[in-house]
C-alpha cells in the first residue's frame, strides 16, 4: 500500500507544481486523520485518493479557479487518429516530454481520469468511486482524453516532420 506515492503523483498532476502538490498532500493526510472515522474498510488507496482529489479541487478553486472551468475544446489539433503510427510513438525519443505536455494540456476533469487509469492503474470502478462520477462518464472521459493525447502527439510529430527533424 504505497499510498503516499499515489497521493503525491495525483496531487502533482492536478496542481502541476511540486510545492503545491506537497502542500496538498500534507493537507489531505491531515484530513484523512481527522475523518478517519468515515473510513469503513475497503480499498484504503481509493479512500485516500478521494481525499487527495477533493483537497486538490479545493486548492484549485481557491488559487486557480479558471482551470476548473476550462472546456474541452473539440476542435483543437484535429488530426485523423490513423495518423499515429504505433511504432513512431513507441520509439520516438522525445515521446516522454511530448506525452507530459499532452497530459498537462488536458482539462483537469480529463487529466485526472487518464492519470488514475494509465499511470496509477486504477480500475474504472475505483475511478468512479474517487471522482464520484457514473461509470459511463469515467469511460467517455477516458476515451476523449486518450484520443486527445494521441492527436496532440500526432500533431507535434507532424510539425517536426515538416521541419525535417
Amino acid at each position, binding site marked *: 500500500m504505497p499510498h503516499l506515492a499515489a497521493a503525491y503523483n495525483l496531487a502533482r498532476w492536478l496542481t502541476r507544481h511540486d510545492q503545491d502538490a506537497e502542500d496538498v498532500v500534507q493537507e489531505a493526510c491531515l484530513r484523512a*486523520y481527522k475523518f478517519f472515522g468515515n473510513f469503513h474498510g475497503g480499498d484504503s488507496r481509493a479512500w485516500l485518493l478521494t481525499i487527495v482529489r477533493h483537497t486538490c479541487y479545493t486548492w484549485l478553486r481557491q488559487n486557480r479557479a479558471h482551470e476548473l472551468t476550462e472546456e474541452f475544446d473539440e476542435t483543437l489539433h484535429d488530426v485523423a487518429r490513423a495518423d499515429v503510427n504505433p511504432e513512431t*510513438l513507441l520509439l520516438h525519443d522525445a515521446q516522454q516530454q511530448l506525452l507530459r505536455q499532452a497530459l498537462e494540456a488536458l482539462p483537469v476533469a480529463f487529466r485526472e481520469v487518464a492519470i488514475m487509469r494509465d499511470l496509477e492503474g486504477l480500475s474504472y470502478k475505483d475511478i468512479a468511486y474517487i471522482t464520484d462520477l457514473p461509470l459511463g462518464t469515467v469511460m467517455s472521459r477516458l476515451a476523449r482524453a486518450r484520443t486527445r493525447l494521441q492527436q496532440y502527439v500526432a500533431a507535434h510529430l507532424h510539425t517536426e516532420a515538416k521541419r525535417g527533424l
Partner: protein
Amino acid sequence: MDCDETQDLLHGYLDDELDVVSSRALTQHLQACPACTQAYEAQRALRTALRTSALYFTPPPSLPKQVRATVRRASRADTRPMRWTRGGLSVAVAMAIVVLLVWSGGLVHRRSPVDEHVLQDVIAGHVRSLMAAHLTDVLSADQHTVKPWFEGHVDFAPPVPDLTTQGFPLVGGRLDYLDNRPVAALVYKRQQHAINLFVWPAPSGPARPESTVTRHGYNLVQWTTAGMTYWTVSTLNAPELEAFAHGVQQHITPPSGQKSSRRDAG
C-alpha cells in the same frame, strides 16, 4: 458490431473492462476491420508508452517525514486524550493507522502487478500474429530447423520441444516484442487453433508454478522454470492448453548443476 460501436468500446476493451460478450464481439470485429485494428494498435501503443514512461511523479524524500510531523502535531492539539471517533477507534489508533496506510509498503510497488501488463501484451501479441497473417518468420515443423533460427535473432536459446505425438504439431517460430523486449514465439497447432508459446529469460527469482487465466475469450498459461518465463496463449480450451503446457514442461531441461524445478505432469 460496427465501427462506431467499436470506437465506443475500444477503451473498455483495452482496459479489460468489458463483459465477455462485448469483448468477444469486438475481437471478431477487429479481426475483420483493418481501420479499427489500426485505431486499436495506436491506442495500445499510447497506453504502453504511458505505462513505461517515467511520467509518474515520485514524492521528494522529505515528504513522509513532513506528513508524519503534521499528523503528530494535529494529534497533540487534540486536547481530549481519549476522544473516540465514530468508527470506535481512539485518536492514537486512528493516527497510527493513517500513518501506516500512507506509507506502509514503501514507495516502490506503485503500479498494478506487472503480470497483468505482460498478460495484455501476450494476448495482443497473439491477436496481432493472427491478424497480420504474420504467424511465423521461420516456417517449419522440424525443431532442428526452428531452434537454430533463433540464434542470431535473440540473445538466448529457447527450447523448441517436439510435441507432435501429443497432438500439438510445430508450425514454426517468429520473433516478437513483449514486455519491452524481443522474445521468441513458437507456434503450435491443435486442430484449427493456433497456439503461441512466448519464451524469454526470466528475471532472477524462484521458479513459478503454472497459472491459468482467461481473458477476452483467450486462455493463457504462464510459468517460470529454469531461468525462462513461458506464456502460452490460444483460443483452445483450458484443459487442452494445460496439457500442452505440461508437454512443454516435460521437454525443458534445466541447466546442469541446478536442481530441477519443473513440474512433472505424470
